[in-house]
């Protein structure tokens, strides 16, 4: 199981960091993962492989065995979060992530990524609209 505070290789020079900031509730303004560190890492690997990335920002979802999008964490407002937000650094070679908090307008998934998810049948037009408006939406 990946260890909090450690980095793990994803590709040639791409590494993912399991940040402790989003694993403990020391900061009341940070969203927290509810999934294991292994699932967090896998979520980023899936994002990276699908290139759900725009510049230094990435977004990920976890599709469960029933074909539904899983809850992967919760926000400081205690809302469930189903979208992971990943941030790249050092020329996008080092990444970390956290559950998306819809309060944070600049963190929301880009329209391009939402269109990809629609094309794959993960979300519908209505969800895209609500996500873009930062409204509550159960995917």
């Amino acid at each position: 199981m990946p260890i909090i505070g450690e980095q793990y290789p994803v590709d040639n020079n791409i590494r993912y960091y399991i940040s402790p900031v989003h694993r403990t509730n020391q900061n009341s303004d940070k969203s927290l993962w509810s999934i294991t560190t292994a699932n967090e890492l896998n979520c980023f690997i899936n994002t990276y492989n699908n290139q759900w990335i725009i510049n230094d920002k990435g977004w990920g979802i976890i599709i469960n065995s029933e074909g539904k999008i899983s809850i992967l964490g919760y926000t400081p407002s205690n809302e469930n979060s189903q979208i992971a937000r990943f941030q790249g650094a050092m020329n996008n070679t080092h990444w970390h992530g956290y559950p998306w908090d819809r309060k944070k307008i600049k963190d929301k998934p880009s329209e391009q990524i939402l269109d990809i998810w629609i094309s794959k049948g993960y979300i519908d037009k209505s969800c895209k609209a609500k996500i873009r408006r930062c409204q509550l939406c159960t995917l």
Partner: protein
Amino acid sequence: MYPVKIIIEGNYWDIQLYRGRLYLWDVNGTLSIYQWNELIDSLNPTNNSAFAYSFIDGNALYDNKFSPLLHDQNFIDFFENSFNAINSDIIISEEQLNKFLISKQNNPFSELPIDSDIYYNQLFAALDSGLYYINVHKNTKKYKADTKSKKLWDNPIISLKISYNGRTALSAGDEGLFEYRKQNTKYTEILYDNLEISDRNFYRISNQHSLFSDWNFSSIYNSSDIDNSFLAIYNTNKMTSDLYNETNPSSSYLGDENYEYYSFKNIIKFERIINDSIIFNLENNQFDNKLSWGNGDKIYKATDTGIDVVHFKQYNVKNLLNKDLLDLTDEEKIISDLHHIDFHPWKGKIIAGNVANFGTIVECENALVVLFDSRINNYDSITIQGPITKWRIYPRSLNYKNQLHVVLSDKIEIYSFNNDYFQDQNSKKLGIKYTHFNYHKNS
């Protein structure tokens, strides 16, 4: 009286109706513009007047000229029967719609609009990349709207609303609530010196979370389901010409050269913010995670058993200059008449709301609910099943304030509510009180 409905088939993203033209964005961003009045006429071969009023001139029956008729039971019965007799299963196919197409173009914006509003032939759009606008209602040969947008601001926005006199409220999530500075006119001057300037012409009213907002006259109601919603109160001070030295000596009234013309100017200035916990008398001023919203003279708050409503009196804001909110007498109060309206069950958590003249609209996770006053029952409601992509009302429009537009998965439903003409505007609970001055000119 239930609404009349028209259905437009197709896979759309957004809709606007302005000055007789229908603007539709499809999911690929193509913007198509149609002749609305002609489209409605084509659906009304028998020239049914109720149908025409429903969709072309929703303001007409508010006119004072009709007031005696609206108190005549014979006329009320006639008109209600006329509205109820309209066939409510009118479906417009894409082929039928295309007969009224006057312009089709690529999306003039770099993204599909998250929200938009139109004022004086300019359509403003909220995008992830900021605030943009295009000129619309053009009469050029090929395209009736600009093909390229112009950028006004690069802060992401999730909602925007333009007031009856052109002021623009912008909701930017955790970045807060902003106002886009409007140019002063001969009759209106807005003072921004007590607001934080964010960028040229953009002023931050609050850094509290803003999901969406709307106008309660000169004031702004900011809605959030993460932080407290609040009312940003602006005071309007009416100054006559003898105070600001503008006269019009060349004007005359009915040929009387001795008539002295006194002009006036409204000076509008931000005063303070009042949280919804105070507006709705919540204990300990706590945030209760329940959404509230406002428009015109009404403010609403969702509860577990229905909605609460209060009246907002913009004309009493001046009393706050000399007194605390809690020290105001009943006649001086800006918030009054708290009422509760039972309604259950809500169709999932409430995620948005707004108020039109005809009623209040509540967006739940799974459906849209419209609550409206009824002459027969205390109130009535309709539920529009989701998934809802977008819904829009036109409370400040000259012609369309009785309409609700709902973008669904494979169609748009256009509702026309015609119950409000017969309501007592002073006593109704669900819907903005109609006055003759709360609309956009030329819309």
